[in-house]
């Protein structure tokens, strides 16, 4: 994985000094809250319900075991012994004191981490595929271009006061695990007829109050021009994006208002200008330098058949279940990708304790080239595990409640912190996720239901990506009481779609039964080989409406 050189380290260290100065000026009263707020918001420090929240950037979701241990230590010393992984592959601490943030930042800098641009109206952490570098069919490791984007976007002088926040995601396989079509910019790695690597560019996706799927505006941007192309999009957005209404300020509204064609024309015109100056061209040797950091680990020459694992699976039902659900195919024979579920039945989706982090760091050191990934579904991942080690890895994970065999199943839900923590929330989301996972805890039943993504958010900001869940749940507030609105048919992958609102919202008491009704309705309607989303696409919303509201 990428390692800082002297320049990267210096920049992060200088940022720690700068922010420490800002905190000191605030605590002494030299800076008023109104003046300090934009500064802390540029550094991932929010004021939440119970305390501050600190959002730590995990660039493209890749961590080393050393970094994970440091995060665990920070959680113990400065927080309450756990952290929350988000849909943006970041980590949030729910309880840090403002006065401790400078010390936390210094600790982070010591392991090449930071909180730069994890909030504010700037270019945020670039996210990617958590299976990068391991999955079959990948054109290149998307993290190379992510790292290049990270550097270009860090303290970009022109784009730090955009109309709104700006999120970029990169995918390098046809199957999109990075949800690029719901990002302000989605980058898809492609090849042209000559076999050269380049990038397809999608723009104007986003969730929130106005969910919109991105539009493709470029079929092939050569690698050396990608930064120039991105800069062109950002410039058009910065100059013409709306600033009169924060709900209309995302680039998706600009693209929607002027149309994808007009957007493409404006970007192309800008791109022609930027390209002539040539200053943003990517030098091959710099790409090569960064590529080296993401070079494949020293894989062994192994057979893909590992009879002893099959034998263990035959004896150990839990292991067999886990193998089937949580382990994915690797591109190299004899290796697997291990998905680590952070969705134990009845607990908080995405939460991970400091102790669990230490365990993961140890497992990663022993079995997975010291690398841990964060998935946008709020799970973790060990990208390169020898098949013959799978049983040991399973046992180690299982001992720490990290092996719930539910990846992609109904209990593998995405849930934002909601009203249990978040200042903007209308309703709780975690508690609904917990009850739902308890209701559907039976693994046999989960398997019968098949792949089904349930996403929930505590308010319209949609941090829990509810619009693109196969089933989406949105918390709303009706006169101080929590209600839950259901959407069906959303998807975040290459078939991205925004879910349809099924009807009036449900109370806290009704929502779990409502989901149950939806699942039963689907099971009654599905045809051979279908998963929920297939059935939904075939039959539409009506049968679900009929069942849900028939008794009301």
């Amino acid at each position: 994985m990428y390692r800082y050189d002297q320049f990267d380290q210096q920049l992060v260290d200088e940022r720690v000094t700068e922010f420490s100065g800002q905190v000191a000026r605030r605590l002494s009263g030299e800076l008023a809250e109104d003046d300090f707020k934009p500064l802390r918001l540029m550094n991932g420090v929010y004021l939440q319900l119970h305390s501050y929240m600190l959002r730590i950037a995990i660039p493209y979701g890749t961590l080393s075991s050393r970094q994970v241990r440091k995060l665990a230590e920070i959680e113990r010393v400065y927080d309450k012994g756990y952290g929350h992984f988000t849909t943006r592959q970041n980590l949030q601490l729910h309880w840090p004191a403002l006065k401790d943030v400078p010390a936390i930042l210094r600790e982070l800098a010591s392991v090449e981490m930071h909180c730069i641009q994890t909030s504010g109206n700037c270019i945020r952490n670039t996210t990617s595929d958590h299976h990068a570098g391991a999955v079959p069919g990948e054109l290149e490791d998307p993290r190379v271009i992510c790292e290049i984007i990270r550097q270009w976007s860090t303290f970009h002088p022109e784009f730090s006061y955009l109309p709104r926040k700006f999120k970029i995601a990169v995918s390098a396989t046809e199957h999109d695990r990075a949800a690029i079509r719901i990002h302000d910019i989605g980058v898809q790695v492609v090849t042209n007829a000559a076999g050269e690597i380049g990038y397809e560019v999608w723009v104007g996706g986003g969730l929130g109050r106005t969910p919109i799927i991105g539009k493709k505006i470029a079929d092939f941007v050569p690698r050396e021009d990608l930064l120039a192309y991105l800069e062109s999009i950002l410039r058009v957005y910065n100059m013409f994006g709306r600033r009169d209404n924060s709900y209309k300020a995302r680039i998706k509204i600009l693209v929607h208002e002027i149309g994808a064609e007009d957007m493409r024309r404006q970007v192309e015109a800008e791109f022609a200008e930027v390209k002539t100056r040539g200053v943003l061209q990517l030098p091959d040797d710099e790409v090569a330098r960064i590529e080296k950091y993401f070079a494949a680990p020293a894989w062994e020459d192994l057979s893909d058949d590992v009879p002893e694992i099959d034998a263990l699976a035959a004896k150990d039902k839990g292991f067999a279940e886990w193998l089937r659900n949580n382990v994915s195919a690797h591109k190299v024979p004899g290796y697997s990708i291990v998905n680590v579920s952070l969705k134990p039945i009845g607990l908080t989706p995405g939460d991970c304790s400091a102790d669990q982090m230490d365990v993961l760091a140890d497992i990663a050191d022993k079995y997975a080239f010291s690398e841990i990934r964060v998935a946008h579904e709020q799970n973790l991942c060990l990208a390169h595990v020898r098949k013959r080690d799978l049983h040991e890895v399973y046992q180690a994970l299982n001992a720490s409640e990290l092996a719930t065999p539910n990846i992609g199943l109904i209990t593998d839900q995405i849930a934002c912190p909601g009203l249990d923590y978040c200042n903007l929330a209308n309703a709780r989301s975690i508690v609904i996720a917990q009850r739902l996972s308890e209701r559907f805890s039976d693994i046999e039943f989960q398997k019968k239901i098949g792949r089904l993504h349930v996403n929930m958010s505590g308010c319209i900001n949609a941090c829990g990506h509810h619009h693109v869940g196969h089933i989406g749940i949105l918390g709303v507030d009706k006169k101080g009481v929590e209600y839950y609105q259901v959407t069906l048919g959303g998807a975040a992958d290459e078939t991205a779609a925004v879910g349809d609102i099924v009807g009036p919202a449900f109370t806290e008491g009704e929502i779990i039964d409502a989901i149950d009704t939806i699942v039963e309705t689907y099971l009654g309607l599905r045809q051979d080989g279908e998963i929920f989303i297939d059935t939904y696409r075939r039959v539409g919303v009506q049968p679900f409406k009929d069942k849900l509201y028939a008794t009301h």
Partner: protein
Amino acid sequence: MAQHSRKGAQFQAVTANRLADGIVVYLTAANEWSVSLQDADVAEGKEAAEALLARGQKFYVPDILVVDIYLFEVEKTDGGIRASSVREIIRQAGPTVRTDLGKQAEIDGVHA
């Protein structure tokens, strides 16, 4: 700022977060900021509530004690002062999904 009291709320108290650590606090009759809702000064009626908020804001002037001051609705019960909305109940107690954390685990007088 968002509205945290219903129109015509009878009883209200003033809350904020401490600047240095973000912890939820309540304005007391002695013009101090207490971590416990039970210590809050409760105003009855609109005018008294506005006066209470003004007192909190005056107190806020040094601007290094607390941030984000606002009024919210409470009820007076035999068991003490109770916050009315789910949000304020959670703020005075802690996350409902981690009852081992927050004020519910640290001080008395917290209600669910």
